[in-house]
C-alpha cells in the first residue's frame, strides 16, 4: 500500500503551537474512509426505512407514548411538588381522553375499533379452538362410565345423620338437642320408603351381584333397599331413632363407585368399636341388617345416567348401650377383601370416626 502524499503549503514549523492542519485531498482518501462510507450507507438502508414509515404513520401515537413515558419518568423522580402533581394529573387525564386529537389511551377511535376487531377475531378463534378441543374431549369420554376410577377407590364412608360435624352431642331429656338428627334421618330415609322402593326398584336375589349386561346406554334396574330393612333404626317403630332413649341410630353408607364390586364375592362388613379409650364404653351395638354388611346384590353401580333409581345400601348402627355423659370416640370400619381402612391422610376411606356424647 502506498499512500501518495502531496505537498502543500504548510506552517513554518510542524511543531508550532498554533496548529493548522491541511485538508486531505480526495486522492488522499484512504481505504478506510471508503469502507466506512459504505458501512454508513448500509446502516442507512437498514435503519431508515422503518423509522421513517413509522413516523409517518404513527406520528401522533408516538407523541402520546412519549407523554406516557414522561409520566412514568416523573414517577420515578424526586419528590413531586403540588404543581407536578397537577401536571401529572393533567397528563393522565389527557392520556385517558385527549379532546384535541380525539384520542383515548393514546389511540384514536379508528385505531381502537381496529384493535377491538382484531382482538375480537383473535379471541373468537381462540374460543373456537377451546370449544373444539372440549368437544373432542367429550367425544372420547363415555357418559356412562368414567375413564378412570382409581382415584375414587377404595370407597369412602359417610354416616347419617350429618349436621356439619361428626360430634353427636345431645341431651336425652332435651329434644331440642337431638331433634335435628331425627329430622335429618327422616329426610334421608324418604327415598328408602318401602312403598317407593317397591314401586321403582326390583327385588333381586340376595347374595349375588346384580349384573345387567347389555348396551351401555340401556337403563339399568336398581335393587330394592327398603327402609324396613333397618328395623329399629328405620324410624318406623321409633320415630325418634332411639335418640329419645339415649340409644341413637347412626346410618352408615359406603361411597358409590361406578363398577365397584366387593372382591371374591364376600360382602363388605361394618364393625364399630371405641377408637380410643375404654373398649367397654360401648357395651352393645345392634346392626341392621343383622349381617352388618352391604349385600352383593347392590353391586355393581352403573352410574348416574343409566342407574337412575339406585339407592345406596345402608347399615344402621344402633348404639343401645353406650356410656353416658362422656365423649366416646367411635370408629366404624369396613371389613372385606380389597377394602382399605387405614389410610393415614384420609380418615374417611373405609372407616369413619365420630364421637358420641349422650347426656342424660
Amino acid at each position, binding site marked *: 500500500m*502506498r499512500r501518495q*502524499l*502531496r*505537498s502543500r503549503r*504548510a506552517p513554518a*514549523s*510542524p*511543531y508550532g503551537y498554533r*496548529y*493548522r*492542519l491541511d*485538508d*486531505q485531498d*480526495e486522492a488522499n*482518501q*484512504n481505504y*478506510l*474512509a*471508503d*469502507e*466506512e*462510507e459504505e*458501512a454508513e450507507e448500509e*446502516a442507512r438502508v*437498514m*435503519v431508515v426505512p422503518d423509522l421513517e*414509515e413509522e413516523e409517518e404513520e404513527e406520528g401522533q*401515537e408516538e407523541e402520546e407514548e412519549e407523554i406516557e*413515558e414522561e409520566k*412514568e419518568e416523573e414517577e*420515578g423522580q424526586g419528590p413531586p411538588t403540588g404543581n407536578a402533581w397537577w401536571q401529572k394529573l393533567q397528563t393522565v387525564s389527557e392520556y385517558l381522553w385527549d379532546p384535541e386529537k380525539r384520542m383515548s389511551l393514546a389511540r384514536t377511535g379508528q385505531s381502537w375499533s*381496529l*384493535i377491538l376487531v382484531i382482538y375480537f377475531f383473535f*379471541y373468537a378463534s*381462540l374460543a373456537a379452538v*377451546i370449544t373444539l*378441543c372440549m368437544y373432542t*374431549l*367429550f367425544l372420547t369420554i363415555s357418559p356412562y362410565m*368414567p375413564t*378412570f*376410577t382409581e*382415584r*375414587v377407590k377404595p370407597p*369412602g364412608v359417610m354416616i347419617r345423620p*350429618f349436621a*356439619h360435624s*361428626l360430634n353427636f352431642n345431645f341431651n336425652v331429656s332435651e329434644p331440642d338437642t337431638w331433634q335435628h338428627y331425627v329430622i335429618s334421618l327422616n329426610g334421608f330415609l324418604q327415598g328408602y320408603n318401602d312403598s317407593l322402593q317397591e314401586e321403582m326398584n326390583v327385588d333381586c336375589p340376595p347374595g349375588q351381584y346384580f349384573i345387567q349386561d347389555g348396551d351401555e346406554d340401556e337403563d339399568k334396574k336398581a335393587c330394592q333397599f327398603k327402609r324396613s330393612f333397618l328395623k329399629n333404626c328405620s324410624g318406623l317403630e321409633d320415630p325418634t331413632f332411639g335418640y329419645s332413649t339415649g340409644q341413637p341410630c347412626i346410618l352408615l353408607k359406603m*361411597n*358409590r*363407585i*361406578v363398577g365397584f364390586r366387593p372382591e371374591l364375592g364376600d360382602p363388605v362388613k361394618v364393625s364399630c368399636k371405641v377408637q380410643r379409650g375404654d373398649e367397654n364404653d360401648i357395651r352393645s351395638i345392634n346392626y341392621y341388617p343383622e349381617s352388618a354388611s352391604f349385600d352383593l346384590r347392590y353391586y355393581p*353401580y352403573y*352410574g*348416574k*345416567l343409566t342407574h337412575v333409581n*339406585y339407592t345406596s345400601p345402608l347399615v344402621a348402627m344402633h348404639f343401645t348401650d353406650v356410656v353416658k355423659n362422656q365423649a366416646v370416640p367411635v370408629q366404624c370400619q369396613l371389613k372385606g377383601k380389597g377394602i382399605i381402612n387405614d389410610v393415614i391422610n*384420609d380418615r*374417611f*376411606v373405609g372407616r369413619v370416626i365420630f364421637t358420641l356424647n349422650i347426656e342424660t
Partner: protein
Amino acid sequence: MVKKTLEIYSVELSGTKDIDQTDKGDGKEKYRGLKNCFEPKKNHQKEELKKELDLDDHKLSIKELEKKYGTNIITGLSSTQAAELLAQNGPNALTPPKETPEIIKFLKQMVGGFSILLWIGAILCWIAYGIQYSMNKSSSLDNAYLGCVLALVVILTGIFAYYQEAKSTNIMATFNKMIPQQALVIRDSEKKTIPAEQLVVGDIVEIKGGDRIPADIRLLSVQGCKVDNSSLTGESEPQARSSEFTHDNALETKNIGFYSTTCLEGTATGMVINTGDRTIIGQIASLASGVGNEKTPIAIEIEHFVHIVGGVAISIGILFFIIAVSLKYHVLDSIIFLIGIIVANVPEGLLATVTVTLSLTAKRMAKKNCLVKNLEAVETLGSTSVICSDKTGTLTQNRMTVAHLWFDNQIFIADTSEDHSNQVFDQSSGTWASLSKIITLCNRAEFRPGQESVPIMKRVVVGDASETALLKFSEVILGDVMEIRKRNHKVAEIPFNSTNKFQLSIHKTDDPNDKRFLLVMKGAPERILEKCSTIMVNGQEQPLDKSTAEAFHTAYMELGGLGERVLGFCHLYLPADEFPESYSFDVDTMNFPTSNLCFVGLLSMIDPPRSTVPDAVTKCRSAGIKVIMVTGDHPITAKAIAKSVGIISANSETVEDIAKRLHIAVEQVNKRDAKAVVVTGTELKDMSPEQLDELLTNYSEIVFARTSPQQKLIIVEGCQRQNAVVAVTGDGVNDSPALKKADIGIAMGIAGSDAAKNAADMVLLDDNFASIVTGVEEGRLIFDNLKKTIAYTLTKNIAELCPFLIYIIVGLPLPIGTITILFIDLGTDIIPSIALAYEKAESDIMNRKPRHKKKDRLVNQQLAIYSYLHIGLMQAVGAFVVYFTVYAQEGFKPSILADLRVEWENGNVNDLEDSYGQQWTWYQRKYLEWTGYTAFFVGIMVQQIADVLIRKTRRNSIFQQGLFRNKVIWLGIASQIIIALILSYGLGSVTALNFTMLRPQYWFVAVPYAILIWVYDEVRKLFIRLYPGSWWDKNMYY
C-alpha cells in the same frame, strides 16, 4: 514500629441499588478555597477539581515557605510542633469513604425489586394462618407453609443477588497500596524514620530513587531526580524534577512532588505542603467517591419493568379482592386469593435470571478482553451513544514507530502495523543503504539480552521511545543490528541533548578496504540540514541547492503535518588522510567536522493507530455511536491519528480546513459547513457549558486535544446533558472522576492506574479500542436477549394468573396451587430463560442506532401485550384443557365443576358426587386437585417449550435463525422436562409439594397448543417481515 492496620480505602462501586447517591454538588455556590488550603467539603469537591488545581507553593521562595509553614529547612520542625500539627490536621492518610455497611446492602437486596411484594404475600399468609388458627386450632398449616416458602424465596433470591453483586463489586484496596509506609524526615535537626502517616505540613523529608513520595512536597534541593507521575497525570515518561519554579500550573511545575507518585532515580529534599486528604491525590480520590453514581440504563429498565409488573399484580390483586369480597367470599379467603394473584403475577426467578444472564455476558466479554466489574455495565455498553476515548494506547499502539521515510526526493511509507512484517518501500537505492547505516549506528538503544526468541516488536529495549522505534525498524529490515554495530566499531559519540538537538557518533567502517571513519548524525531536521552542504540522491552526493532544500522543506512540512515526529539523518566519511586510524576523537573539543555533511534523508515516527481500530471506529459509526477523542497530545498529532482511524472521516473538514481551502479567514467560515472540529484544552477552559453543548451537538466528529484529565469530566457531563449514554476510557488517577461520572467508565488494563481501574465499571485488558466495540456488540445483544427472556418469563404469568381469576369467579376447584407456581417460576423456567442469553443476534446489531434511553424500553407496551394477551392467554387456554381433561376423565365434567368450590373444599363433605354419581371423600378430591395442579403445571411447561422456541427470534423465522444453533436452548428444554418429570414422578408422593404422578398421556394434551403457539408466532413474524412499518409491525413487534 507501630503499624496501624490501614483501613482499606476504596472507591465505592455502584451496585444495583446505588440510587440515592445522586450528586448534590450542582447548583451550589462555587467554592473558592483559600489559596493552598483545600477543605475536603464534599459538596464543593467537584467544582474544585473542574477548575484547575489551586496550589501556589511552587511559586514561593524557600524563605517564604519557611515562614508560611513555620519550619526550617535545616532543622525541620520540632517534635512538639509536629505533634500539634498532627493533632490539628490529622494523620497523613486518605480517609476511607463511608462505606455502606454490608448488612444494609444485604437488606437492600431483600426489599428491592419484587421482594417487597412477596414479603407482603408472606405476611398476609401468616396473618391468614393466625386468624385461621385463632378460629380453629386444628386448621391446616398450608398458609403458614406458603408464607415460609415465600419468605424463603425472597431470602434466597436476595442472597443470590447479594452474592452476585459482592462478587462483581470488586472492592480493591488500591489506594492503600499507594501509601508509603515510611518516610525519612528531619525533625529537631535529626534525621528520623517515621511512619509516613505521621508526617505533617512543614516537615522536611528526604526521598531517594525507588521511594514513594510520602506527601505533596515542594522540592528544595534535587540531585538528578525523576518521578513517575503516570498515576496522576497519565504521562508515562519519567519527569525530571528540580527545585526551580518552572510552570504556573502546579501539576506541571518541576518543583513539586506529588503524594503517592514514585521517585524513579536520584535524591531530593522537600518540604511537606499537603498531607492526607488535602493532597492532590487525596482530593481526586475523595472526588471520585463523591461523584454520584448514575443508575445504569439497565437498572432503570428493570425498575421500569418491576413497576409495570408490580402495578399489574397489585391492581389485579386488589380488583379481585374487591370482587371476591363482593361475591360474598370470606375475607380470609379473599386474602388468600390476593396472595395467589401476587405470586402468579410476580416472575420470582426473573431478577436472578437477569443477573445470571448479565454475568454470562460478562464472562463472554472477559474472554474478549473486556473485564466487567459492575454487572449492569454489560448492557450500558450496548446502549452507549458516545465514546470518549483516550488516544495513546487505546487508539494507538503506544509505541513510536517509523511511519514515513523521505529520501531520493520521495516519501515512502513504512508499515506501521503491529508486527512491521510488510515493509514494501524501495530498498534498492544507494541512499537507503546509507540511511539504514545511519539509523543503525547513530543509536544508543539496545535490546535487553536474552530475547532472541521473542518477536522483534515485542522485545524489551533500553532506550528512549524514538531510538527504540529506530532500533526495531532497522532490526526488522536489516537483521541483527547489534552485529552490524559490532562490525562498525564506535569510536566517539555525542548523545542527544536539548541544546545541540542532534546526536552524533563516529565509527570505523566494516569495509576492510575503507580506512575512513564514518561520522553519522541524526537530529532535528532543520538543524541537520544547516550542517549539510550536499545531499544524497540515488546514492550519489549532489550539492544542496535551493530546489533540493525546497523539496526537503516540503517533505518536512508534509510529514510534520501528519503529526509525526521527524528526524533528519546525515553522514560524512572523514577523509583518511586527515583522520588516520589512530586519530583520537575528543567529543568535548569537537576535533572533527560537524558541518558540510551529506544529508541523506528524513524519517518520521508516530505512535501509529492499532490496526484494528479503524474497523472498530467504522463499526461504531454504523452503530450510530459517536467517537470523541480526548487526548493530552498535540492537536496536529491528535488530528492526524483521528483522521487515520476515521474519527474524523476522510471527507469532513474542520473550520480551519475550510478556511485554508477557500483562502479565507477562519472567522469568515460558516461553522455549519464543518463536520469536524479540533478543540484544545485552552479553548475548552474558556467555554461556557452552553457553548460546549452547542459544540457537542453541532459537530459529529470531535477531537479534544491538549486537554487535562480534569477536563474529561467536563466533556463527559457535556455529553450527558445531550442525553447521551457516555463511555469514557481512562488510565490515570486523574481520570477517575470522569470514569465514575460516565455511564460506563472503561479503565485500561495495562496502562491504567489502580485508581482508574477502581473507579471504572469495566477494564480493558488489552487497552484496545476495538475491544470496546466488541463489548458494545455484546451489550446490545444482551439487551435484545433480555427482552426475549422477559417476554418468555412474562408469558406464563397469565397462564398462572387465570386459574385464580376463574377460581374466584366461576368457583372451579383451584387449577394450580401457589407452590406449584413457584416451581414453574423458580424451577422449570429458569434454565430456558437463561439459555435465551446464548441466542445469536437476528440481524447485524451493529447497524442499528443506539437505543434511545427513554423510547426504546426493555419492556414496552407491545412486549407486555403480546406476552400477556396473546401467547399468555393461549397458554392459559391450553393448560385449562389439560386440567379439564384430567377432571373429566376422573369423573368431574366441566359442567359440574362450576360453582363446586365451596363443597369441594369442605372437609366435612366426604361423599361429594361427581358427574357419574360417584362419591368422593375430601382427601380423594384433594388428591385429584393436586393431580389437577400437576396437569396444569405440565400444560404450562409443555407450552413454555414452544414459548422458548418462539422467543429465539423477534422478527426472523425460527428456521432462519436455525433451530439448533443455540444448543443451550435445547439443554434448557431438556431441563424443563426433566425437572417436571422429577416433580411428578419423583416427588409425587411428597404431599407438601402438591405434586402427583400424572398419567403419561396427560403430558401430551397441551402439545397441540404448543404447536398452535409456534404457528401463531411464525405468522406474526411473517407479517412483520412482509409488511414492515404496517399497523401489524407497530403493534406486534416488541
